[in-house]
């Protein structure tokens, strides 16, 4: 109905009557409004509004009509309701029985409650049914049946779980920590199973983890669970969960609370909260919170206290009804391990670390799967080393990278790139470019394949948030798909190439490239192996196809790298040899082809990397082989240098750097210097040149001279490298690696000056401290980069040197001890890691020297003895190891002089000892 009445006309009257009861409206309007048409209009407005409910009300505000309570005794499907036993997120649960001729069986029936005219709630209930139907695990409450009542209320018939929530069960039965851990692992098994079936629970808390009277765990209430793969179920329903309506905020992960994407890592967090409470009786976060906003902040920003630390405090929290509760530490311990001190020492160490790891704020820093979480608990129970580490020294087992610390010290960025054959070096190589083009073309082809989801899957995987767990699940799907595609390809070359490409990509994601961590390297190897085997079959069918053989090489490089990461050096060597042989075959057919020659050089480098750092069976003979390969690579690459092509020159330099580093490691210093001298001279002829490369060259030459003991000239090289580092920082102020390089250069300069002056002062110390702090920060930001850890150790070593030079021996010892602790932990975890043993030996020697300077001859002798023993351990395995031989001899000399010294604390002999160089 159109009306000529605008707001100005109506507002005054509307304001006046809107809150009046209807009877009074009429009389008021009669009195105050002269215009009958206007009066009618206002009536019309009000009455048409009344017919509508919920206009401009927030959907959040509207509350559902209370549902009709189902009566006890009524029939639902083939069952009869007996009693109400509980209320979950969206449904009320009843005990019911089925009695007919054949069965007398008790079940649980969950009926939807609330406003079930809302299509979303209904769909959510339906999804829960689908989820439960797909899960079949002894620790998950089983779905028996489902349906809809006459009124249209959906219901689920489930296995009846008689028991208690896990926290109450544990307390009532006074289970010890070990028993609680065992019980918890059952819950993990259930959640892991759910994850494998692409279901995230999202509401894990004690009330949903029941323990039956027989002592078995049952997971309940997948009411707000979510299916990871939206393609798997027809109507994915994502329930509204604004902050206020989170069902169990105390158990919610930071990302849930923030509203970010939720992944399996969130379940892992919730499991962590659950375990934390089971073991300590305290909630990890927000115990003090009185309101939701405080709790939220606590979850997102406050680190939980160590379990071993918190059990001695009184526990204050709110029970499910919101009533504040206080429990004394003695009571907490009484239902667990007996006494507070027993409980505390039980939790100290491994369990502290395991719990805190599961509770990390960043999803990608937690356990990447429930299985790994449960496995770590198992390791703990069996007395094996656990994977969880305290925050600052997270060990991820980057064994291969650790073995080349000198490379790291030289140039954190450029040399690592060379060594592991990633990115920079490869992309510049012509072959890599070709491969990339082909891969892109093939990828486009894949979209045309009849049943290809491959592309979508891969894109989807790449777009997933950083959570490793989410990627893991997506990868599982991809693998299934590829395996199927593989079977159906029937040897078709085109299709087979797609599959090879797919496996390679998946291997990339599973392995070190994705940062998932060492846990998945085995899976990556399996995927690469599948790809390689398929390659072989392709080549077998068409042996003359060069293209295929060229393409093989990048796959091999990744395979080798991953093998080295898992310590499988024997196979890595074999594969590297095979790669080299392949390139030589190719060259035989295409001599002088630059592409082939580059490939050959890279294959030499690959083999050299394997040999220059192999573990248990390394001897000087192997490092000589590495040097031979380096020489071959450098020679080839130098011939390929073209004056206008900077990339080719960069490649050659990198090979020369590697050669020099290996020579240096074998203490063949003069040859190393020759190589570097020629490279530097040649590089300086070019302008503008490659600053990163030149910087690295100078740095490495400085290192070589430093190790030789030629400190004056080492200093000169470091000083020459500094302006280059500074230019890099200026070029890109946000580049952390450039900043780090600059600080490293300054630190080197400081240390050399300190050594030369013999009277260092604290200025030099500051330079080294700055560098060390930067590294510590970068390491904290990305603990998967274990080479930062090595840089840290070097930083501490340098600080110790300077401190001891200024006379602050105690501080020096503290720094050396820090480095020693790390080295010992690493050596303990990996008995085949000889580099750590070398470090330990040198650190003991360092400690000995400093003790000697303090006049503590007894300590000094003991440290020398430890050092000698450690060097001997290395020599037992590597009889020709140049460094061990060299230092072991010097130590003998020092030890003898200390023993002979009669002067006590003012022993002049001790003051003349030089610390060995840690970098090697």
């Amino acid at each position: 109905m159109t009306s000529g009445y605008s707001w100005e006309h109506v507002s005054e009257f509307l304001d006046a009557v809107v809150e009046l009861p209807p009877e009074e409206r009429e009389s008021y309007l009669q009195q105050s409004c002269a215009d009958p048409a206007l009066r009618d209009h206002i009536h019309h407005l009000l009455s048409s509004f009344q017919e509508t409910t919920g206009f401009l009300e927030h959907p959040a505000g509207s509350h559902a009509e209370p549902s009709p309570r189902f009566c006890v005794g009524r029939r639902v499907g083939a069952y009869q309701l007996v009693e109400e036993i509980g209320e979950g997120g969206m449904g009320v649960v009843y005990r019911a029985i089925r009695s007919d001729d054949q069965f007398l069986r008790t079940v649980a029936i969950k009926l939807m409650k609330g406003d079930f005219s809302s299509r979303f709630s209904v769909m959510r209930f339906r999804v829960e049914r689908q989820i439960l139907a797909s899960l079949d695990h002894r620790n998950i409450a089983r779905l028996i049946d489902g349906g809809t009542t006459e009124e249209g209320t959906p219901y689920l018939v489930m296995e009846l779980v008689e028991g208690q929530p896990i926290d109450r069960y544990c307390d009532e039965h006074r289970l010890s920590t070990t028993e609680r851990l065992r019980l918890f692992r059952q819950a993990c098994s259930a959640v892991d199973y759910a994850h494998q079936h692409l279901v995230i629970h999202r509401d894990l808390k004690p009330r949903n983890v029941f323990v039956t009277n027989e002592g078995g765990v049952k997971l309940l209430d997948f009411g707000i669970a979510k299916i990871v793969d939206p393609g798997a179920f027809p109507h994915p329903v994502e329930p509204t969960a604004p902050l206020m309506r989170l069902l169990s905020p105390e158990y919610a992960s930071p990302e849930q609370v923030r509203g970010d994407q939720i992944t399996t890592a969130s379940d892992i967090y919730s499991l962590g909260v659950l375990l934390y409470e089971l073991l300590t009786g305290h909630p990890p976060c927000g115990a003090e919170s009185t309101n939701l906003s405080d709790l939220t902040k606590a979850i997102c920003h406050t680190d939980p206290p160590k379990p071993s630390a918190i059990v001695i405090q009184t526990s204050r929290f709110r029970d499910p009804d919101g009533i504040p509760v206080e429990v004394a530490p003695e009571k907490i311990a009484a239902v667990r391990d007996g006494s507070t001190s027993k409980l505390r020492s039980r939790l100290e160490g491994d369990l502290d670390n395991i719990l805190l790891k599961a509770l990390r704020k960043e999803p990608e820093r937690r356990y990447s799967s429930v299985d790994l979480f449960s496995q770590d608990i198992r390791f703990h129970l069996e007395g094996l080393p656990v994977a969880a580490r305290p925050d600052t020294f997270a060990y991820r087992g980057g064994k291969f990278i650790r073995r080349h610390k000198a490379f790291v010290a030289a140039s954190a960025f450029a040399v690592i790139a060379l060594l592991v054959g990633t990115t920079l070096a490869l992309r510049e190589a012509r072959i890599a470019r070709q491969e990339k083009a082909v891969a892109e073309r093939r990828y486009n082809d894949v979209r045309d394949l009849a049943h290809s989801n491959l592309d979508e899957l891969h894109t989807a995987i790449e777009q997933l948030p950083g959570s490793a767990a989410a990627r893991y699940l997506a990868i599982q799907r991809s693998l299934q798909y590829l395996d199927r595609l593989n079977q159906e390809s029937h040897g078709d070359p085109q299709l087979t190439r797609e599959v090879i490409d797919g496996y390679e990509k998946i291997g990339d994601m599973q392995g070190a490239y994705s940062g998932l961590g060492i846990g998945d390297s085995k899976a990556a190897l399996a995927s690469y192996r599948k790809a390689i085997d398929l390659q072989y079959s392709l080549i077998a069918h068409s042996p003359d196809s060069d293209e295929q053989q060229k393409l093989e090489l990048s796959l091999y490089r990744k395979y080798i790298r991953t093998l080295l990461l898992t310590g499988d050096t024997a196979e890595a060597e074999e594969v590297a040899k095979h790669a080299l042989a392949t390139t030589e075959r190719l060259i035989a057919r295409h001599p002088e082809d630059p592409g082939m020659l580059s490939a050959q050089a890279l294959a030499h480098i690959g083999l050299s990397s394997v040999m220059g750092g192999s573990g248990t069976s390394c001897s000087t003979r192997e490092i000589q082989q590495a040097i031979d390969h380096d020489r071959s690579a450098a020679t080839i690459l130098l011939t390929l240098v073209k004056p206008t092509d900077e990339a080719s020159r960069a490649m050659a330099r990198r090979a020369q750097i590697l050669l020099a580093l290996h020579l240096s490691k074998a203490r063949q210093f003069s040859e190393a210097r020759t190589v570097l001298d020629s490279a530097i001279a040649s590089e300086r002829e070019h302008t503008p040149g490659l600053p990163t490369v030149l910087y690295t060259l100078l740095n490495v030459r400085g290192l070589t001279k430093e190790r030789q003991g030629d400190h004056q000239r080492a200093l000169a090289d470091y000083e020459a490298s500094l302006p280059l580092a500074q230019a890099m920082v200026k070029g890109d102020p946000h580049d952390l690696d450039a900043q780090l390089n600059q600080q490293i250069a300054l630190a080197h300069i400081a240390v050399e000056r300190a050594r030369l002056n013999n009277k260092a002062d604290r200025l030099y110390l500051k330079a080294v401290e700055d560098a060390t702090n930067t590294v510590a920060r970068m390491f904290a930001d990305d603990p998967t980069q274990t080479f930062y850890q090595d840089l840290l150790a070097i930083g501490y070593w340098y600080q110790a040197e300077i401190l001891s030079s200024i006379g602050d021996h105690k501080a020096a010892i503290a720094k050396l001890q820090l480095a020693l602790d790390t080295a010992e932990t690493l050596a303990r975890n990996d008995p085949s890691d000889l580099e750590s043993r070398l470090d330990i030996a040198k650190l003991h020697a360092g400690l000995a020297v400093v003790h000697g300077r303090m006049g503590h001859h007894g300590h000094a002798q003991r440290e020398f003895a430890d050092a000698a023993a450690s060097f001997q351990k290395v020599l037992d395995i590597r009889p020709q190891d140049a460094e061990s031989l060299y230092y072991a001899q010097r130590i003998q000399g020092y030890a003898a002089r200390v023993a002979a010294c009669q002067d006590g604390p003012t022993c002049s002999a001790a003051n003349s000892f030089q610390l060995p160089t840690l970098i090697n």
Partner: protein
Amino acid sequence: MVNNPQVPSQQVTKLLMAWSDGDPAALDALAPLLYEELRRLAHSYMRREPPGHTLQSTAVVHEAYIRLVDQHIQWNGRAHFLATAAQMMRRILVDHARSRAAAKRGSGAIVELLEDDLIGSDKRVEDMLALDEILDRLAKVDPQRVRIIELKFFGGLSKEETAAILGISPATVQRQWSAAKVWLHHELTRRGKP
């Protein structure tokens, strides 16, 4: 790709306090931070909503407050924060509705949903645009009424908070809000009719 721009809450709190102390420049500095946070939150809410569901801007605004403000600031500050956020939410929703409507017109057919569908169905898009237009017109004759609507509907402020911001009594707020709803309902429904 920036996943989570971290809005430093200390910065926001400082600005808020500066603004409640009477520094208008603080609001200028605050606005873009706040806007971005709201937008991000709104989208993240929508990711979790089923299609067709209306965004609950109140929840977004309240959540933004909790997340951005670091400590318990004075009551005055909170209300002003929510008020500003409410106005921004209106802009966010309207802008989004406009772009959806434009996309639809452009292709002449129902296009694939834009990545984050803040406003669900087409009907809701129209409603949002219509509401915006009505409010703009209303603002010319009764700006205070529009403020009440923004604060209550987009911001979810209580009548006490709204009253304090506008300097009127809560009872007045209540009455005027009810009246506004009646009238808006009429205006929106009659648009569909010839």
